[in-house]
């Protein structure tokens, strides 16, 4: 199953990516990747810590991303 979808993805991928992503843009994302991923983990850990301390005062519902207003 995995092989099948891998083949499918590689076929679809090449056909669907009609936009030139730009080599420099790709590389920059890969360079930022570690930093941004780590940032996200740090932020979620920090939120967990904040929630842990906040819980003592009030129980706050976590923000639901689906409900965010644009």
């Amino acid at each position: 199953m995995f092989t099948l979808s891998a083949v499918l993805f590689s076929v679809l991928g090449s056909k669907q990516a009609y936009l030139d992503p730009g080599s420099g843009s790709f590389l920059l994302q890969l360079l930022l990747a570690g930093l941004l991923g780590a940032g996200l983990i740090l932020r979620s850990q920090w939120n967990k810590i904040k929630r842990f301390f906040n819980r003592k005062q009030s129980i706050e519902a976590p923000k639901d991303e689906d409900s965010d207003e644009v």
Partner: protein
Amino acid sequence: MKSSSHLGASFRDPSGFLFIRDGILYRQVNRVYAENYARLIDSGLYEKLVKARLLIPHIEAEEEPADPSQAFQILMPERVPFISYPYEWSFGQLKDAALATLSIQKRALKVGLSLKDSSAYNIQFWHGKPVLIDTLSFEIYREGEPWVAYRQFCQHFLAPLALMTFCDVRLGQLLRVHIDGIPLDLASKLLPGRTRWNLGLASHIHLHARAQARYAEAAVSEVRRGRAMSKQSLLGLIENLEATVRGLTWKPTGTEWAEYYNNTNYSEAAFAHKEELVAEWLAELQPKVVWDLGANTGIFSRQAASLGAYTLAFDIDPAAVERNYQQVRKDKQQNLLPLVLDLTNPSPGIGWANRERDLLTERGLADVVLALALIHHLAIANNVPFDHLADYLSGLGKWLIVEFVPKSDSQVKRLLKSRADIFTEYDRATFEQAFSKRYIIQKSSQARTSERWLYLMEKR
């Protein structure tokens, strides 16, 4: 085979295209895109986005394809009342469109899909909010892949927003010259040095521009060298872009017209009478579509909108348009769209064959055109003769509500203060004569306690 015409902007993406048949808009989904389309529907993302008014709804139509050799499915999308372009949006509109794009991308990633493009032209204003109109923008997300539309997002949204924030709001107009967004090297060159201390702009604009220059000739596989970008990192990138966009702000102060109503010498009684006349005439005409030219912050546009007309409020001043848009968002107004437009140089047809982005008048017409406190600006400040004005305005819609401001008015005096008065024929009689060639003057009335006149005219 039934006749149909392809839309001029719909040719880049092999996933499908738009066509019009018998006046109805259809989208053909090609077979190469079938898997992605199925995932969009089956994952529930389509329904979620439509419910959040972030994606245009469609129905699957039993219609003959325009290109049967490639067709998988024909969709009938709901039509947006008026197609507008990023160079006609105010700062807040472009910012909201950017945030909508990122919000869609986050929701897509949650269900294993990703945006394969992030063109600002795929966003339109619908029910007062930005919505994605390209149903075929999604592709199945492949673990390890960076965001293919990252560059496009930075060029279409981040660069103009940063330039509008840190340099001058009028630089949004660069989007009219650069159809695929502002080149990042240009943005990097124009932005002040202090933006290098903004982590988001330092990475996504300045560093990005340098990376592009350095690896311009390199193949993607060459720079990748097998490296992958985890989903966590990709989400981190999207959230960082979101925070960067949210951090960009612009306050509409100090430009030409935003303070106009505060400075004008129109007396309260005269203004009230003008409002009364316009309201009365609009109520009689019951228009479906109103174009308010020189709308300022939209006082008269709101009159039209409150009668149920879909109203476009055009103004040259980005500050007035921004104020108008913020009011629209605050009131959750659904049928009023403020847009930036310089009437002395209206949006042309641009892009491939000049057909990718249509010129203003090809995107719709009005039932009623409002031209209030406008004619003197065009006739005197821009030297447009009355008959040229009547020609152009009569091409925009059947009815015209127009105001004539005489030379004795302080606003006209102000326009003439710094220049020689070459306008010997600028008077009410000449105005009426010129407009009578194109229109039948149905009603006219002097605004109480003022020298200004209002006319209701019907196109001949």
